[in-house]
């Protein structure tokens, strides 16, 4: 049987070069990483063997006497996170439109994108300082810190959703004689609202968990409990906290699934 093999592919020089550059960079990155980092496995494992019994069993035998406190703190956290995330969800909407390519054009959307990126660059600690100074150490400072922190992330996610909308529908509305605002309300919003909602709810969950910031501003909340439980090596209390968080997040999951079904 005579074999006729396909001709060899002709890759452009650019593509070949690009592939080579990418490969070399990745290899270099890994070499650099493994040379730069030295992990003392032996010590870590010894430590693990020694600590395992002190940490893990305690985590799994939660200190139920702390249940009341955890529940109360969790409730506080929910209020703070709710107010903060909702504020963020509202703030993020106009920002996301400013940062979306297909709304503002490739170049005009740049400042919006940069702004959102810059907001995200601020660590919790600094946001906390800013808001404590603004409104004092209390739950409201926590709300503001969460609101701003979440705006950066939500704005980015929202703008990505906007960039993915179905352009045909927009064109359909334009062909009806709709003006820009009408197109926004009839063609754009219905497409993005469900995703916006899911992300906002997702962020609410994240905010409930990422509440270390609340400790810094004196807002209390579960984050403060975590900090103290860890500082005092109180692992069984940490276990209770974990249970509390898991319960709350699961409940939110279910509620949000319910709400989404109604609204979407």
């Amino acid at each position, binding site marked *: 049987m005579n074999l006729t093999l396909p001709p060899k592919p002709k890759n452009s020089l650019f593509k070949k070069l690009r592939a080579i550059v990418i490969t070399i960079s990745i290899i270099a990155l890994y070499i650099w990483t493994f040379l730069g980092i030295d992990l003392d496995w032996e010590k870590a494992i010894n430590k693990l063997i020694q600590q395992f019994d002190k940490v893990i069993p305690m985590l799994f035998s939660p200190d139920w006497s702390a249940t009341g406190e955890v529940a109360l703190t969790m409730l506080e956290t929910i209020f703070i996170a709710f107010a903060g995330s909702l504020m963020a969800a509202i703030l993020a909407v106009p920002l996301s439109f400013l940062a979306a390519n297909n709304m503002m054009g490739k170049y005009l959307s740049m400042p919006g994108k940069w702004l959102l990126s810059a907001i995200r660059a601020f660590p919790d600690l600094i946001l906390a*300082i800013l808001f*404590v100074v603004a409104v004092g150490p209390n739950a409201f400072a926590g709300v503001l810190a969460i609101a701003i922190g979440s705006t950066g992330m939500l704005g980015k996610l929202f703008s990505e959703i906007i960039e993915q909308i179905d352009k045909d529908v927009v064109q359909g509305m334009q062909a009806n004689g709709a003006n820009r605002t009408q197109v926004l309300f009839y063609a754009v919003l219905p497409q993005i609202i469900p995703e916006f909602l899911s992300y906002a709810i997702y962020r609410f969950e994240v905010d409930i968990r990422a509440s270390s910031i609340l400790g*810094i501003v004196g807002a209390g909340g579960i984050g403060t409990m975590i900090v103290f439980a860890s500082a*005092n090596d109180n692992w069984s209390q940490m276990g209770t906290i974990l249970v509390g968080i898991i319960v709350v997040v699961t409940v939110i999951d279910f509620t949000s699934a319910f709400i989404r079904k109604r609204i979407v």
Partner: protein
Amino acid sequence: GTSDEDDTQGTDGDAQGEDAAGETPEKIVMGFVPSQDSETIADTVQPLADRLSEELGIEVVGQVMTDYTALVEAMGANQVQVGFIPAFGYVQANQQYDVEVILKSIRYGSGTYRAQYVVRADSGIESLADLEGKVWAYGDQGSTSGYLFPANQLMAEFDIANPTDLETDFFSGVVQTGGHDNSVQAVYDGDADVATTFEDARTEIEENYPDVMEKLKVIGYTEDIPNDTISVTKELNDELVQQIKTAFLAFNDDEEMIAIMKEVYNWDAISEATDAEYKVVKDTYEIFKESLTN
């Protein structure tokens, strides 16, 4: 509100603080940053706030904060009027915002504590001079007993210009551990040769490492470091400050409060304090300030 004319907070001396004295706020916010240089770390300020409120007849809101930088800034903006701040935080607050110390905590019968140098008993390290070329473990660079005081002492004793030189030239390496117990642990595990901690942080890990007291020894101490402060902002009027002082001091004679203070905060008592007592911290701060800003 209070002292509206006082927008130029902290730009010049004490005089302004005095001027502002006059009105009494209807609500006082008390910020509390638990001392990291302590065995158990309290997570509530409620008992103190409640009692104070009772004594003063003004609403007192107590907030626990986990980072004193935020508290210092909050006092600067007069969002917090009474602060429980560690010594180092107090010095910053005083220099920037004319926050004034009125009281301090008494622990183990003393208004001060010390930092210690811990090494392995079999390491052959006997004095501070032997530390040259060794590996140093400390909690973090903002810790008064874990870093600032020992570093200052070593710099003075061995004539080292700045902390960077200390870390890189005097010592052969440093380990930043995040906490005093971790520092002790690092020496115990052999990850470092010397740890600087509060006195005596070895007991922190004694439960897990019963032989820590024999395996590790202390080769020296730093100067005395004043304990945590209770400080007030300059906007608070003198009369009220006086009342607050009296109220806190009265806790010393109250069985119930003493019990709480002992159990929750690890305090024996509260005593009066003046800014002068914190001069030693201030001097240290000055030294580090220079190294930071270049």
